[in-house]
């Protein structure tokens, strides 16, 4: 069965700024997967747990966050806070017997860089391996 993942990326202004300036087409040419939708936020430290969970509720198969390096966040501790929240969701997914790898935290320096694209490709690979979200599968099977 063919499967096209729905992956939602939440990236801070600083890590995504220059990448997004290249435009969607240029990003795809660089190898950025078409399965990833970027949601840009001012700082990943402002991301709420409920916002990331809402992405799963709205049909995401995988969710990831890209924030500044741990020791170099523009807002000092923003990316550290985001990493903690992603960790909490990983635990919650495990409690629900869902693969914790469906959500990840990445840290990348600002500007256009291969790490930003590598994170997207890594998530695309992981989610293709895991298959569709069990939240979607159960609902579909019940219809």
């Amino acid at each position, binding site marked *: 069965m063919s499967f096209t993942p729905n992956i939602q990326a939440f990236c801070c202004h600083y890590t995504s700024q220059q990448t997004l300036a290249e435009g969607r087409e240029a990003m795809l040419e660089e190898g950025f997967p078409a399965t990833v939708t970027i949601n840009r936020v001012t700082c990943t430290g402002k991301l709420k747990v409920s916002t990331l969970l809402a992405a799963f509720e709205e049909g995401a198969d995988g969710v990831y966050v890209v924030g500044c390096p741990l020791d170099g966040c523009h807002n000092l501790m923003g990316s550290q806070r985001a990493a903690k929240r992603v960790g909490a969701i990983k635990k919650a997914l495990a*409690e629900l017997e869902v693969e914790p790898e469906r959500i990840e935290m990445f840290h990348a320096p600002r500007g256009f860089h291969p790490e930003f694209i590598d994170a997207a490709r890594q998530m695309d690979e992981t989610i293709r391996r895991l298959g569709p979200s069990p939240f979607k599968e159960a609902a579909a099977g019940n219809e």
Partner: protein
Amino acid sequence: MIIAERKPLAELVEMIKDYDRILLLACKGCVSVCSAGGEREVENLAPLLRLGCKKMGREVTIIEGALVRQCDREYIDAIDRWDGEYDAILSMACGVGVNFIANLRPMTRVYPAVNTSFFGGSAEQGIWAEQCAGCGNCILHLTGGLCPIARCAKSLMNGPCGGSQDGRCEIHRDVPCIWAEIHDRLERLGRKDDMNLIAPIRDWSTAGHGGPRKVVRDDLTI
């Protein structure tokens, strides 16, 4: 304050399996301060419950609500605003809150979303530690303000015991021996001789061993 922890999600999903509409109710008291059952925790738990139920193949409606406290009659009355909108309440308050709803709403189904843990304080951000056992007969004036009832593994009144090693408790190296701390503190305060006082056999009837406890204040009752 009262410290609590969210119950495991699998337990909660099982608890609400017979209901389609849940009122998930935060308490803005202690459990809000210890980040177990306040409005933010309701905001986080609601999608997890929906996802957990969805994984089981069913949809559930979660109504998010909050009461100022769930341990006072007048605040429980505020539940009336959701009348007819829910099948059961999942309370994020401590056990007192769940009991109060059950006491005052005989026909309302109410379930606990948290495990009520202990009376404690925030040792540092994200870490809470037990400080008081609520035993009803406080002896902190004899122990330099440190409670051996709550903080000694044996609740000894005349400690330390032989399991105290290098200021640590024998149950775990991470646990300080509170009697060693009481000794050091009394010494610092020039009250070291208080350690030689023998505490008499303790009356535990105030600690709940005489059944549920009640405080009656004639000056306040109407």
